């Protein structure tokens, strides 16, 4: 336990020692702040426009997801790629710690940072309540959805980072792979919603999950299961990738 905690602590602090983390933090809060402003406008302006599900404006928005697309790759790119590049992976792999402990520690550290990214947005909640109560359940399910979806993207980024030596390549490849989960929702040909193709696209398209379900207070187990299983799958692959390094 102590090796794992020690590694989590060091990886988490390492985020704050690099400028990337602060840039990501700033951009993210800027974008969510702007979206919050737009949501607030919709909620408080007089006239018939209004909005039924405020979280939808915040999280169902395409702009948000396009920015979000960049965040997990930027957070995870250095995790293994930098270690391989600088040779410190040798020191990590010759320490009396299991490979899965290394992977779990790095994942928890980047997930903690991801939580740090989202925690300041909690301040919007009392502000919104101050303007008149909004339904709390969709807020809760939206956050839950974001935390689970984030785990999936971060695990994907971690896996890609363990495969390559260059941080830039890790970021770009995990960006492209994340596109699979995000862009599917933007492509909106006039598909018949009951067709099989549409159902498949809907299953993997994360923004649509948020647009239709999480922001409306619906906690759909199929989506939760997707996020959890993909997270576990990518973490498993990362452990294997790390192990395979010993056989080269």
């Amino acid at each position, binding site marked *: 336990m*102590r*090796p794992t*905690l*020690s*590694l989590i*602590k*060091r990886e988490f602090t*390492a985020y704050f*020692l*690099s400028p990337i983390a602060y840039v990501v933090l700033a951009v993210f809060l800027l974008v969510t702040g702007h979206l919050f402003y737009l949501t607030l406008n919709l909620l408080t302006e007089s006239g018939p426009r209004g909005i039924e599900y405020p979280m939808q404006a915040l999280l169902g928005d395409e702009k948000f997801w396009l920015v979000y697309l960049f965040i997990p790759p930027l957070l995870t790119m250095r995790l293994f790629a930098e270690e391989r590049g*600088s*040779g*410190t992976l*040798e*020191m*990590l*792999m*010759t*320490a*009396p*710690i*299991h490979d899965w402990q290394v992977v779990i520690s790095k994942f928890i550290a980047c997930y903690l940072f991801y939580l740090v990214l989202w925690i300041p947005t909690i301040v919007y909640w009392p502000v919104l309540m101050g303007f008149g109560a909004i339904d709390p359940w969709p807020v809760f399910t939206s956050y839950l959805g974001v935390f689970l979806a984030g785990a999936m993207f971060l695990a994907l980024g971690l896996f890609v980072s363990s495969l390559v030596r260059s941080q830039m390549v890790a970021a770009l490849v995990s960006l492209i792979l994340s596109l699979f989960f995000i862009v599917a929702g933007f492509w909106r040909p006039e598909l018949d919603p009951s067709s099989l193709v549409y159902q498949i696209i809907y299953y993997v398209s994360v923004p649509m999950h948020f647009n239709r379900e999480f922001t409306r207070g619906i906690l759909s187990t199929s989506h939760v299961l997707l996020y959890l299983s993909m997270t576990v799958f990518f973490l498993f692959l990362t452990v294997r990738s790390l192990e395979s390094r*010993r*056989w*080269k």
Partner: protein
Amino acid sequence: MIQVKNLTKYYGDYPAVRDVSFKVEKGQIVGFLGPNGAGKSTTMRILAGYITATSGTATIDGRDVFWDPIEARSRIGYLPESCPLYTEMRVEEYLRFRGGLKNMAVHLCESRLEYVLERCWLKDVRRQLIGTLSKGYRQRVGLADALLANPPVLILDEPTVGLDPVQIRETRKLIKELGNQHTILLSTHILPEVEMTCNTVILIHQGVVAAQGSLDEVRSAHGCNSLEEVFVKITGITE
């Protein structure tokens, strides 16, 4: 303490280490010699648990490095040639992190930290960022890390490369002192260093063990006066 039997490592088709066998008893300081590309670093990496051998076994204090990796690695203090460190951490921060990684209890870690900082002459730079340290100091941090958990075996890959003469002298002195309490396997190109610090020698050439034994044994077996002559004779480089 260290037992290597028929160790073989192929990088693809290239045999880096071929059927290497040797034994290091407790308390010995072994000089691991060989020309570049002979297979020294590969053997050390296999012992440290970084890579796995293609065939053969290696055990540290009876623990197999492949089947019982955690136990084997916790008995080793390893310092690789490139001495990789996290440049954004401070010296004592890094050592505390390594102590945690090696599963040392906090109070033990603190007392050992003071001891290794003292022993490796790092007291003045303990709060300095590793990125700002010179090569010699970084090497010392690496050595401090290897010593931290007080492992019975030290595996040092070229510990004096890149150091200035004063530092080299001090490091050699330190290694000789450590030899009293630890078993040391150190690889080097500097033959006088081996003659000064080590009591046993293993010479690797093209992936096989070419000479093995105490200094006197090796010298007399090849009929040479100095280790350099033995080296040159075995590796076949003629004037």
